[in-house]
Structure formats: C-alpha cells, structure tokens
C-alpha cells in the first residue's frame, strides 16, 4: 500500500482520467485508488465532469456530421477558396497593369530594376527576383520626402486593402521596439502579381520597408541576405508569399528586424 501511494503522482491520476496510462501503470493507479477513497471520489468526479463537457460540446449541433458544415468551409478544405482568391488577385493585378499602361506606364517597376523583371514568379525565380524588386521599390519610394506612402498608417483600411490586393491576410508588423514607426503602405505592380510595401521610419529619418508578394507555387525558405548596391535585404518565402525587409542598415540590425517581421506578419 505505502509503495503504491508513494509511486502514484497527481500526473498519474490525471492521465488515468484521460486514459493515457499504459496498462501496468493503470493497474497500479487502480490499486492505489482502491485504498484511497478520497482520491477515488475526486477522480470519479473528474470523469463525470469530462462526460458532461463532452455531452455539452460534442452534441451541440457542431459535431453532427458534414451536412451541418457550411459549404464555404468545405470548399476551403478542398483548397477552393485559395484558388478563387488567386484568380481574383491575378485579375486585379492585370487591371492594375492596364491602368499603369494607360497612365503612361510611369509607375511600373520595369526599367528600374537591373535584369529581367518579367516571367512567372514561382519557385527559384521568385526567390531571385524578390529582393531585387523589393530593393528597387525601396529606392524609389524611400527617397520620397512628401509621398513615401500611398495610404498612411493612420487610415484604418490600410491593411485590409493591402491584404485584399496581395491575396493574403497581412498584419502590419510593429517595429516600435527597434525605433521604427509605420508610416503607411502602397500597392505595387509586379510582372505577374501584386506586391505590398510597408514603409517605416525611425527618429533619425532612416527608412526601411517590408515587401510582400503573392507567390503562386511557393515553398518555404530560410532567411537570405543580399546587398543590393548598398541597400541590405533579408528575404524569404513562406508558402504562398514572399517577403523582404529592405533598408540601409547593418546586416545584424536588419536581421533582428527581419526576425520580428517574420514573427508578426503571420496572422
């Protein structure tokens, strides 16, 4: 008896309630409980609690089989919604490009970027082009004293709008602890998709930008660093999005910022 008592812990008792014990251990707990009526009553109550919780939550119409599940959720599980959305942003970007051409093409990135810009952004090419596009966009807009952003951070619809246009939910990373404040963002056309740029500025007037682009058949990569003519960029792919953090900072400083962006931009 005393041996059994000494060897049975509270964790054993909890695991006994949940049925996670291996048979020998379970037998030991049962022996123990047969000698400890207070604990046996307590454990009995826990089991009844569990049954009541399961009865209340599993039998509440949500677990009643596929017929009760809304169609939009079934479609999302099939991957349908993501595909719809992809189609939507491809159309949106096509429209944006037409608009740009109509306006004289003055604000596309073509010609600003060394090397070819066109082509389907996917896999390796996305990885190669991402930092170039991000750096080019940074160079153009960070230099703007009066109009560095298209929509200012104060406007509540900024992230909703960018999320819609880029085709994935985005939350603006908070970089306050590094001294960088969100100024706002803009939408950028790329060859095959839309990209969002978020611009940040510190007290000293240094500007960094976060660049996000939808990548149709993306993979997941680690952080990579490139120096684009004096402008540092950390970039990575994460599923169907490509990210870059660009700024005229030391590599180590940029890396800390990139990590913070990585942790926060998921939503």
């Amino acid at each position: 008896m005393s041996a059994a008592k000494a060897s049975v812990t509270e964790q054993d008792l909890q695991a006994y309630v949940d049925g996670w014990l291996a048979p020998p251990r379970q037998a030991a707990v049962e022996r123990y409980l047969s000698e400890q009526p207070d604990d046996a009553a307590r454990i009995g109550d826990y089991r009844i609690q569990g049954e009541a919780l399961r009865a209340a939550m599993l039998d509440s119409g949500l677990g009643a089989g596929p017929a009760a599940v809304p169609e939009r959720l079934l479609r999302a599980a099939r991957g349908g919604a993501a595909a719809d959305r992809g189609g939507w942003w491809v159309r949106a970007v096509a429209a944006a490009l037409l608009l740009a051409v109509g306006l004289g093409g003055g604000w596309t990135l073509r010609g600003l970027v060394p090397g070819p810009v066109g082509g389907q952004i996917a896999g390796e090419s996305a990885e190669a082009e991402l930092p170039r596009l991000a750096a080019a966009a940074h160079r153009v807009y960070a230099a703007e004293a009066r109009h560095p952003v298209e929509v200012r951070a104060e406007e509540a619809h900024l992230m909703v709008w960018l999320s819609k246009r880029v085709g994935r939910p985005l939350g603006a990373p908070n970089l306050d602890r590094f001294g960088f404040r969100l100024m706002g963002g803009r939408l950028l056309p790329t060859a095959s998709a839309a990209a969002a740029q978020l611009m940040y500025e510190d007290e000293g007037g240094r500007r960094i930008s976060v660049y996000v682009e939808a990548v149709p058949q993306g993979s997941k990569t680690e952080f990579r660093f490139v120096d684009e003519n004096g402008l540092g960029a950390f970039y990575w792919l994460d599923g169907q999005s490509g990210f870059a953090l660009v700024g005229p900072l030391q590599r180590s400083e940029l890396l800390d910022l990139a990590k913070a962006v990585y942790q926060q931009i998921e939503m």
Partner: protein
Amino acid sequence: MSDFSRRLQEEIPALRRYARFLARDADWADDLVQDSLERAIAKRRLWHKPESLRPWLFALLRNVHLNQVRRQARRPAEVPLDQMFPQAGRSEGQTNTVMVGQIMAALDSLEAEQREILVLVAVEGLHYKEVAMVLGLPMGTVMSRLSRGRERLRRTLAGESPTTTATLRRIK
C-alpha cells in the same frame, strides 16, 4: 479530392467547436475556421504526417485568433459559453443531465488558462504534449493547470465558492 483535404474536412467540426470557444461569436468563429483551413492548405508541406492533424490545425487557428485580437481587428465577444453551445437536440435520458445543463456555466467561471486546457484535453482528446504545443507552454505547466482546473470545476459544481478552492493535493 486529396487525402489532405479529406482529413481537413473531417476536422471541421472540431475546428468549429474550438473557434466558437475562443471567439464566442458563431460567424466570427466560422471566419476563423475558413482562414485556418486556407492557411492549412497553403502550408500543408509543413505538416509532417506522423504528427496528428488536429493539434497542428488548432495551433494555426489559435494563432489567427490571437493576431486578430492583438491587432484589435476583433474583440472577443462576451457571450456566455452555454449560449455558444446550446442544449438544443440533446437526447433524453443522458447520464447526469442536470450537470450537462450546468457544466458550461461552471466552465465559464474558471480562469481562461485552465478552461482552455480542460476543453482541449477532456473534449477534444488532445494529449498533454499536444496541448503544450498548441498553447506554447511547457508540459508541466499544462499538467498543473489541468489539475487545478479540474479541481476548481469540481468544487464549483459542488456549490462551493470558487475562491476557497486551494488544491487539495500537492502536485508532485
């Protein structure tokens, strides 16, 4: 339909329960589920097969929820849990019928951190290790909160004031 999609569909009821529990708003909960399913499809390569799917999906959903709350895009509603999980359609003659009627209100009176662990363990059948993964906590913390939560729930249901519930047993 891919095997992965089929397995996702099987998890939808569990995701809807967890989302309702977190968000306390039926429409918002289904939005959360939809977001989580879309993310799961996009990130399916990050799920490694031997791992069970449910905790992985729960972690995704919880992450989406917390980010929305943090960005104050959504505020958790203050709807009582027993309204989120109505008693409609409940079969007669169940054991402890009275208790089933009270259990959600009693659960609601627990601290949030104990409540969530109790639901994940007792209702959704997650192992303690999986709960630790979903919540980003050490397993020891999960175990001690589970133990405290169960005891507090027991005393609440027994009609004792929850403030007097010190744990009876030292957690070894």
